[in-house]
């Protein structure tokens, strides 16, 4: 009787552990994407801008440059498509540059070149700048929320790897 109960308990504990394990695998900011205009990309936003002002966007990419201003920080990002975890996919075609203007101080050594960010926020204006000698018009986002992806190490040492080997003999 007692033994049966114990095994039942053990089974339920295992069931409890499963969602915990799965939760450990899910990463990312999980920003609320409701109300986000998915058709707007950094590239096409500038052309639509005066009208599209205030539109919610969910954009992400790779940091190119961080500029600290008096009481805000401008971060220039090369946008990439986001996957289901809202993580920028840098192996895909880039979607153009954008700037997010964050309130206060962001540490430029942390918001450094090549780090990945995802922001959700309002499209506010366009800003003229230069890339080399070319004129470039950046859409500017005022971030509501901001997520800096953890640094990628050069080698993926963590996690579990499965491999399938194919051998050819002559």
């Amino acid at each position, binding site marked *: 009787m007692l033994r049966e109960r114990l095994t039942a308990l053990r089974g339920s504990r295992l069931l409890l552990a499963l969602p915990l394990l799965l939760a450990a695998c899910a990463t990312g900011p999980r920003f609320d994407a409701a109300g986000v205009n998915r058709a707007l990309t950094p590239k096409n936003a500038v052309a639509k801008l005066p009208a599209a002002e205030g539109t919610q966007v969910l954009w992400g990419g790779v940091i190119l440059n961080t*500029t*600290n*201003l*008096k*009481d805000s*920080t401008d971060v220039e990002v090369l946008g990439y498509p986001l996957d289901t975890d809202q993580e920028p996919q840098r192996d895909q075609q880039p979607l153009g540059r954008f700037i997010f203007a964050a309130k206060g*101080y962001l*540490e*430029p*050594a*942390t918001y450094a070149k090549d780090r990945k960010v995802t922001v959700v926020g309002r499209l506010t204006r366009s800003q003229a700048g230069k890339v080399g000698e070319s004129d470039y018009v950046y859409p500017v986002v005022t971030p509501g929320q901001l997520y*800096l992806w*953890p*640094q990628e*190490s*050069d*080698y993926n*040492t963590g996690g579990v790897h499965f491999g399938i080997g194919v051998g050819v*003999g*002559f």
Partner: protein
Amino acid sequence: MRERLNNIPITWLLPALLLAGCASPVPRAISEAPPDNPALDAVRSDAAAYESRQVRWGGEILETDNRESSTRLTVLARPLSKGGKPEYDTDDSAGRFIAIVPGFLDPQVYGDKRTITVTGTLLRNEAGKVGEFAYTYPVVQVQDYYLWPKEVVGPPPPLWYPWYYDPWYYDPWYFDRGYYHSPYYR
């Protein structure tokens, strides 16, 4: 005397040798935090309250400025582990501080995002700029410091596969699959 030495069994020496192998090069002042080690953000907001207090802080070196008889390091603080080592796998930071180290530190060595832990006394807060942002740097007059060895990031070691390296490993099927038996061989 000599005889006596010879009489010491080698097994007695072993623990001593083993312990010597563990001896850490990290100075005690670095591996052990001073009592009530002040927090960086607390000092930043009120330097006067902490003047000449002993601190132990560490982090990533951002700038190295060689002066006539000292070196000023701008450090981005990181949380320290129990042994005083800055965590390197985190973005957690209480911000920047300046460490004044007496003498010359080679910027080729004390730079390039190396991690350092310092102990010393708090001098004052200094106003500086990061871009156009007015930044307040707490300043430490350093007594002891330790530059941590570079974290080596390498490929994961291969799976343990002893036969791979064994030149004497004999595969009875090897000849069967050998080159001359290949159907593609002409």
